[in-house]
């Protein structure tokens, strides 16, 4: 009864006039923050924290949670439309969402992602509310060993993310796990692969890698095709309502992915950056007819769309019940708790007067309400938003380039992150061309540190006895099931097909020609082998503690990559290797020399933009590059002037004036102008 009272009281508190207004302000800010890449939930929250002092507790959290709750929703919009992740937590929606936009189905993708986001958020709210009585015993029954096993379970999803070429997928996952070891080893303090660079001590950030991996290849593709983002028009079928209907067509998938997001987020260290990929993998794994994944399958949008929103509820559970922040956003929220004089812990789960359950329930309502409001507002603007995909590429490209570099820089105010973007942009582009799947790299990158850390914490705390804990065995069985069940299932289906007389279309082609292939794909595989070899050679001095993980990951990956080499070299190739490599079919044929010339040109523009930022600083580089690009692509003076002006105004007003982002001065400005 008390709980019901708290539930109702929490609901009513949200509708107090000032609370509701503040929630709306929060939603408005979160809306913009979500859409803008680089400007993430954590930054926005930290900037808003000072305003919380003057608010009551319910007001403060309506404001902050309203803001956070919508970032994952509107971040999806940028991912779908531009292929640039609006938030680090919405990168996975690019894979199929942006592919849909390329196919002219931007409206449908947006409709699907918004509707599934709403379902995810409501699910999270309900789960948070329902979990109240069991939160503490549930989380306390998990120790480091169980956290480790869950990370392994997550890593096993690499198989699902690999598309049909498991070998390339596993090598990619291995590369991701190896990339995760860059930085100071948290246990021994030994530097791994830092090359004496301080900015690598904390490892490489997810944001610059994701931006590089997806946004840069997309930009190149756009420039090469010379079209707008949408290459074709697909009338009503590609419309918003179709996407909404998709959500209900694949209702169970959306619910399963919501649950996945909420449950995994309870683990400290598993934020939406991870759960989105798990959800994507689950969507692929559990769906029949996987051929469309990576080329614009709506199911690949629904899964992560739901999960990156439902994660908030799960993270809140650990934050509220234990004061342990499950993610960066939660760490800042914890700061807000403290400002409000509220100590997260068991009290939050007891009905008043003993505890603050009504406040906890008001969180639940804020999450639900703010998402309903956001989605409703979004639907009003979806049609014009989707039109963005029909704007000429030559106008969109310089704007995307600005977003890429702003997004890379502004997350940590680190100049070096722009170099990381360029590096991973190049890598991502080559991987796309060579049909290597990119999602496993990101999954390895986010799960690697969790797995390594918790493995050592487990052995330090329990010796090897941890392997016999029931939770560990349970998750291990689940992992095996996840790996082998799809294999058994597909084998059974294959046998059935043979019995029915239909031939299997996925068959290994024998050595098609007697001659050996030393072409570009082979060269790339050789490059991978060389990099892995260097990494392993470097790791010889790491010692047992810091070295174990690089060895355990690096050696098998090294061996597997030889397998891939053999395959490339002898010309063995699966007939259908696209998998999730996200290559979009080109409807228009472009002459190879034009492709080459356009590729060189856009690559030079991308690198050139970076150089101008380096030499002149953002404030000159942004207008200069945009204007030059527009003019060189033959836009009229009027378009050039107005696009340049508005882009600059946006950059200057928001990033320089409002947010005070400390952009570094250009090298030439400091050398000759003296600067400030």
């Amino acid at each position, binding site marked *: 009864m008390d709980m019901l009272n708290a539930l109702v009281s929490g609901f009513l508190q949200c509708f107090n006039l000032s609370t509701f207004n503040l929630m709306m302000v929060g939603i408005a800010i979160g809306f913009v923050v979500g859409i803008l890449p680089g400007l993430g939930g954590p*930054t926005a*929250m*930290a900037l808003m924290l000072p305003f919380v002092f003057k608010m009551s507790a319910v007001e403060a959290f309506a404001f902050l949670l309203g803001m956070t709750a919508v970032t994952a929703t509107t971040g999806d919009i940028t991912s779908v439309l531009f292929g640039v992740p609006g938030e680090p937590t919405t990168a996975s929606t690019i894979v199929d969402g942006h592919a849909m936009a390329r196919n002219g189905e931007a409206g449908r993708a947006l409709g699907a992602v918004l509707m599934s986001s709403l379902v995810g958020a409501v699910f999270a709210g309900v789960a948070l509310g329902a979990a109240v009585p069991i939160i503490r015993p549930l989380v306390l029954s998990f120790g480091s060993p169980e956290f480790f096993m869950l990370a392994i379970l997550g890593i096993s999803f690499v198989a699902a993310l690999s598309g049909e070429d498991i070998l390339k997928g596993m090598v990619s996952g291995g590369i991701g796990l190896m990339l995760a070891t860059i930085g100071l080893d948290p246990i021994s*303090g030994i530097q791994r692969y830092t090359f004496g660079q301080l900015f690598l001590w904390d490892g490489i950030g997810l944001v610059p890698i994701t931006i590089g991996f997806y946004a840069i290849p997309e930009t190149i593709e756009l420039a090469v095709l010379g079209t707008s983002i949408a290459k074709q028009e697909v009338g009503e079928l590609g419309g918003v309502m179709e996407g909404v209907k998709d959500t209900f067509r694949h209702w169970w998938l959306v619910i399963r992915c919501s649950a996945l997001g909420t449950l995994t987020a309870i683990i400290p260290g598993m934020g939406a950056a991870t759960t989105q990929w798990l959800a994507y993998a689950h969507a692929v794994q559990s769906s029949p007819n996987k051929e469309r994944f990576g080329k614009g399958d709506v199911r690949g949008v629904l899964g992560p769309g739901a999960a990156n929103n439902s994660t908030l509820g799960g993270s809140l559970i650990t934050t509220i019940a234990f004061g342990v*922040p499950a993610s960066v956003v939660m760490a800042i929220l914890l700061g807000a708790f403290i*400002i409000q*004089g509220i100590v997260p812990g068991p009290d939050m789960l007891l009905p008043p007067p003993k505890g603050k359950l009504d406040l906890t329930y008001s969180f639940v309502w804020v999450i639900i309400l703010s998402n309903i409001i956001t989605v409703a507002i979004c639907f009003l603007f979806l049609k014009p938003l989707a039109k963005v995909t029909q704007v000429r590429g030559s106008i969109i490209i310089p704007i995307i380039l600005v977003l890429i570099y702003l997004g890379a820089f502004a997350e940590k105010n680190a100049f070096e992150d722009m170099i990381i973007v360029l590096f991973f942009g190049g890598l991502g582009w080559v991987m796309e061309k060579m049909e290597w799947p990119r999602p496993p790299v990101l999954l390895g990158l986010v799960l690697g540190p969790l797995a390594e850390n918790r493995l050592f914490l487990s052995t330090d705390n329990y010796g090897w006895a941890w392997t016999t804990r029931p939770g560990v065995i349970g998750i291990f069985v689940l992992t095996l099931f996840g790996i082998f069940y799809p294999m058994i299932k597909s084998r059974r289906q294959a046998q059935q097909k043979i019995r029915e007389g239909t031939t299997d279309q996925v068959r290994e082609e024998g050595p098609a020609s007697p001659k050996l292939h030393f072409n570009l794909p082979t060269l790339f595989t050789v490059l991978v082998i060389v990099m892995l070899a260097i990494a392993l050679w470097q790791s010889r001095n790491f010692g047992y503690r810091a070295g174990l993980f690089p060895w355990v990951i690096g050696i098998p990956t090294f061996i597997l990559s030889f397998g891939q080499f053999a395959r490339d070299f002898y010309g063995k190739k699966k007939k259908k290797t696209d998998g999730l490599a996200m290559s979009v079919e080109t409807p228009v044929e472009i002459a190879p020399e034009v492709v080459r010339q356009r590729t060189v040109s856009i690559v030079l523009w991308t690198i050139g933009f970076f150089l101008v930022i380096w030499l002149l600083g953002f404030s000159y580089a942004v207008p200069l590059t945009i204007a030059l690009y527009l003019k060189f692509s033959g836009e009229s003076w009027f378009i050039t002037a107005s696009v340049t002006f508005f882009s600059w105004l946006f950059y200057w007003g928001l990033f320089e004036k409002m947010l005070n982002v400390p952009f570094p001065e250009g090298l030439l400005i400091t050398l000759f102008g003296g600067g400030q």
Partner: protein
Amino acid sequence: MLHFLCLLIVIAAPSLAHAGEASNVADFYRGKNVRVVVGFSAGGGFDTYARALARHMSRHIPGGPSVTVENMTGAGSLIAANHIFKVAKPDGLTIGHFIGGLFLGQVLGQPGIEFDARKFEFIGAPISDHVVCAMTKASGITSMDRWMASKTPIKMGGIAPGTSTPDNATRILKVALGLPIQLVTGYKGTADVRLAAESGEVAGGCWGWDSVSVTWRKALDSGEAIVVLQANRKTHPELANIPQAIKFAKSEEARRMIDVGIHGDSDIVRTYTLPPGTPKERVMALRRAFDATLKDPEFVADANKSHLNIGAIPVEDIEKDISGLFKLDPALVSKLKDVLYN
């Protein structure tokens, strides 16, 4: 003639400068922006405190410049420290806030340090980190007697080697007091250590009372968590009955280790720093502004609300602690190196 002019300026300058100091400083700061470069990410302890200070400091700096906080994260705030030393202009418009444990790190030869702690200008530190060791009741370590009598090593949570708390403090206590301790390091932060303690994975940990007293309040009140030891030059008024670590130290070396590695480190851990060569009158103005802010009733109200304790460490003490680090007996330095990094 030119020489004479120069001479005149040299002689006349100090007295003139003194007279016009206040107005010079005010003229300089008017309409400008002072940046506080925080070496940790937004929302953390360092950042929260810096933002609270920044909100109120403007009023106390002559000329009333705006004060903004920037986060320059990385390498446990070492990137920010190096930036303040090497890159930031010494014009009094950039204040650095990075972890003071790096000063000891310099003496012990921590890799990556590119500053010389003795050349920085210091503004002050708002609070000393009051190290306590807190244990769960379930661990059975409810007092120092029980701890010292334990036959098996007690598992304590840590974050990473070289962090002032919990790792450095725990390692020093283990060696200096001969306590049975097994430091399990690698947790993401003290909140994760606390969760591990609650789930029974570790017995507890040693870190700042300001954090323990707020985040573990409920368990402390109910007796589920117990503070068994404190280590600071002063006994905390809320911890009057909790023994001081240094009393259990048997040798002079052990006492020195605690004094340098825990007590001294705690006082300088939250210093606010200016780049070397910042004009003296601006250093003085910022120091006065810093002190005045800490006494400002509006700041105090904000701080109270966010459970930020105030207990300013005088600049003289900070400078003494830091210069003391460079006069340490080489034997103690190598001992500390051994204890903290191996």
